[in-house]
C-alpha cells in the first residue's frame, strides 16, 4: 500500500546563459514548482495509474517516493512506513522501475538482476533462483546469460523490470514502463502486471505512471490524474467518465488535465 499526501517540491533552475559567454547580465535563478499538491492512495491488489501530460510532475513524484529527492512538504508512506523518516526500510518494500533504467553492459542480464538482489540483502542462491523465475515470467530466459550490451529496447526494459522486482516487493512502482516497447512486449507486460495484482501473483500494490490513455483504460483499477504538479481527479475510468460527462476517456482526460489552462484562457 502506497499513500501520498499533499506532496510538494520546487527546484531552483539556473537561468539559461549563466555559464555561457554573453554581454547580458545573468538572470536570477528560476524557481520551478515541479510538484504542488499530489495525493495518491494505492491499495494492495490494485493497479493504480498515475496519468498526466508531459511535465506534470509524475517522475518527480516517483523520485521522491524512492527517496532520491526530499520533498518540501507532504507525507509519503509505504505499508505504513514513512519514506522521509525511514527511507531504506521503505525502499526495501518497494520495487521501483525509474525513468533512468541503465544496465551494466559488461554484465549479463542474470548478473545485473542478481547484483540488485544481493544489494537487497538476498543470498546469491535466492537471487539467482528469483532471476530465473522472473525471466520465465517475462519470457527472457534465452537472454539471461547474454551480456546486456547490444540488447534491444524491449530486452533492456524486461531486464530492468526483473531487476526492480528481484526482491519480490509488495509494492511495485513503474515510471512509464511501456516506453519504447512494441505491441507484443506491451501486451506481455500488461499480462505480467495483471498476474502480479491477482492473489496468485501476490496481490501486489502497483503504481504505474504513464501519459498513454489506452494503457490506463486497459489496465488500471483506479486512476490519479496529475496536471501542473497537482492531483486534479481520482477514481476508476468509468467514474472519471461520469464525472466529466464524456464517452471517450481521452476527452475526459483532456478536460481534467487541461481544465486550468482552458479556464485561464477563457
Amino acid at each position, binding site marked *: 500500500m502506497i499513500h501520498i499526501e499533499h506532496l510538494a517540491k520546487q527546484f531552483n533552475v539556473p537561468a539559461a546563459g549563466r555559464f555561457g559567454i554573453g554581454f547580458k547580465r545573468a538572470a536570477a535563478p528560476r524557481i520551478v514548482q515541479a510538484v504542488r499538491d499530489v495525493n495518491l492512495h494505492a491499495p494492495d491488489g490494485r493497479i493504480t495509474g498515475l496519468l498526466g501530460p508531459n511535465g506534470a510532475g509524475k517522475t518527480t513524484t516517483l523520485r521522491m517516493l*524512492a*527517496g532520491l529527492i526530499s520533498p518540501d512538504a507532504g507525507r509519503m508512506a509505504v505499508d505504513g512506513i514513512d519514506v522521509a523518516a525511514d527511507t531504506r526500510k521503505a525502499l526495501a518494500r518497494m520495487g521501483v522501475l*525509474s525513468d*533512468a*533504467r541503465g*544496465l551494466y553492459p559488461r554484465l549479463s542480464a542474470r548478473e545485473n538482476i542478481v547484483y540488485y538482489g*544481493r*544489494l537487497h540483502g538476498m543470498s546469491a542462491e535466492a537471487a539467482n533462483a528469483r532471476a530465473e523465475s522472473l525471466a520465465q515470467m517475462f519470457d527472457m530466459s534465452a537472454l539471461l546469460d547474454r551480456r546486456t550490451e547490444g540488447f534491444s529496447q524491449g530486452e533492456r526494459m524486461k531486464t530492468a523490470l526483473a531487476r526492480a522486482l528481484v526482491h519480490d516487493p509488495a509494492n511495485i512502482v513503474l515510471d512509464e514502463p511501456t516506453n519504447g516497447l512494441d505491441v507484443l512486449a506491451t501486451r506481455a507486460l500488461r499480462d505480467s502486471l495483471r498476474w502480479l495484482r491477482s492473489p496468485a501473483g501476490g496481490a501486489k500494490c502497483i503504481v504505474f505512471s504513464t501519459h498513454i490513455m489506452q494503457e490506463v483504460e486497459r489496465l488500471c483499477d483506479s486512476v490519479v490524474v496529475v496536471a501542473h504538479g497537482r492531483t486534479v481527479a481520482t477514481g476508476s475510468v468509468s467514474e472519471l467518465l461520469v464525472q466529466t460527462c464524456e464517452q471517450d476517456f481521452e476527452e475526459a482526460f483532456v478536460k481534467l488535465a487541461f481544465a486550468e489552462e482552458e479556464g485561464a484562457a477563457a
Partner: protein
Amino acid sequence: MTKNWQTVVTIFRKEIVDALRDRRTLLTVLASSVLMGPLVLLAISGLVASLESNAEQREVVVAGLGFAPTLKNYFERQTFTVRDAPADFEAKLRSATLTDAVVVVPKDFEAALQRGDAPIVEIVADSANQRSQASSGRTARLLGGFSRERATLNLAMRGVSPDVLEPVRVEERDLASTQTRATQITGMLPFFVLMAVLTGALNAALDTTAGERERGSLEPLLMSPTERWALVLGKWGAVASVGMLIAVLSCFSFLPGQWLLRSDTLAAMFQYGLREALLFLVVLLPFAAAASALLMAVAIRCKTFKEAQASTTVVMLAASLLPLINVFSLGQEAPWYLWVPALAQNLLMTRVLKGDALGIEQVAAPLIVCALIATVAVWFVARTLRSAAVR
C-alpha cells in the same frame, strides 16, 4: 552493520568483475605499465652503453698527422689508436656523422716545438653534437698530458725538479655512492611508475562514477536500500584495487627489466631487487588509494565519461608537474616536500633507488596526506551521490 559490510563486498566484487571485463582498456593499461619498466631501462641502458663504448675507445682523430711525429709518438705510447681526420671533418662534426673531436695540428708544429714557441693545437668539436663534446674533454686531457711530459723533460734537462711546476696537488674525491650516481640516470623511473598508477586507476574511477551517471544506472542503484557510504566504499575499494594492481605490476616489471641491461656499469649501479620493489609498494599503495578517491570525487560531478575525462586531466597534470619541484630545486630538498602528494612519492622512491633507508618518519607524512585525501574524497562522493543521480 555486518549487512552493510556484505553490501560493500557485493559492490566491490561487481565493480572488479566489471573492470576486469573491460578487456581492451585493461590490456592497454596493463601492457603499457608492465612493459614500461623494461622499456625505460632498455632505453637508458642503450644510452649508457653507447657512452661507455665511446669512452672506452682509445682513439684520437688528428688532422695534419704528418706534421707532428712527436705527438703521434706520444699518443701511441698512451696506447691510443691514431686516425687521420677526414678532409671534411667540420661538416661531418656538424651533421653528427663524426662523433670524435678532431685535433688540428699546424704545419710548423715540430719546428715550433723545438724552438719552444708553443704551437697552437686546436681541438674541434661541435657542442650540439654531444658525443663529440664528450670526446673533446678526453682529448684535452690527453693533450694536457703531452704538454706536461714536454715540460717535465725540459725542466729535467735544466736540472729543475718537476715539482716546481706543481706546487699544489689536486685530487678529487667523489662522495656519491655508485647507487647515488645511478639515480642521475634512473631518476625518471619513479615518475613513470606514478603515472602508470594514475592511468590505471583513471578508467575504473570514471566508470564507477561519471560512467554510472551517463548510463543511467546510478538512479536505480540508489533506489536499493543500501547505505551510501557502503556503496561508495565498495566502489572506491574496487578502483583502488585496480590502481594497486597496476602499481604492483609496474614495480615488479623492473625486476626482469634489469636482466636486459646492456651496460655492466649501469647494472652494477642500478640495484633494484625485491627489497626495493617492496619499498616502492609501501610508498605507492597509499598513493593509489588516495588518487583513486580523488579521481572519483572529481568525476562524480561530471555527467558524462567525456566530461569527466576532461576534468580529471587537471589531476593528472598536477601529479605529473608536482615532482618537477624537486628537479627545479636541483636536489635541495625542503622538509615540506614530504607533505605534497606525488612529489613526496617521487622523492621517497628516488631515495630508495639511491639506496637510502626509509624510516617511519619519512613514510608517515605522505601516509597521513594520502589518508586525508582519501577520507575527504570518499566523503565528498558519498555526499554528492544522491544529487548526482537525479541531475
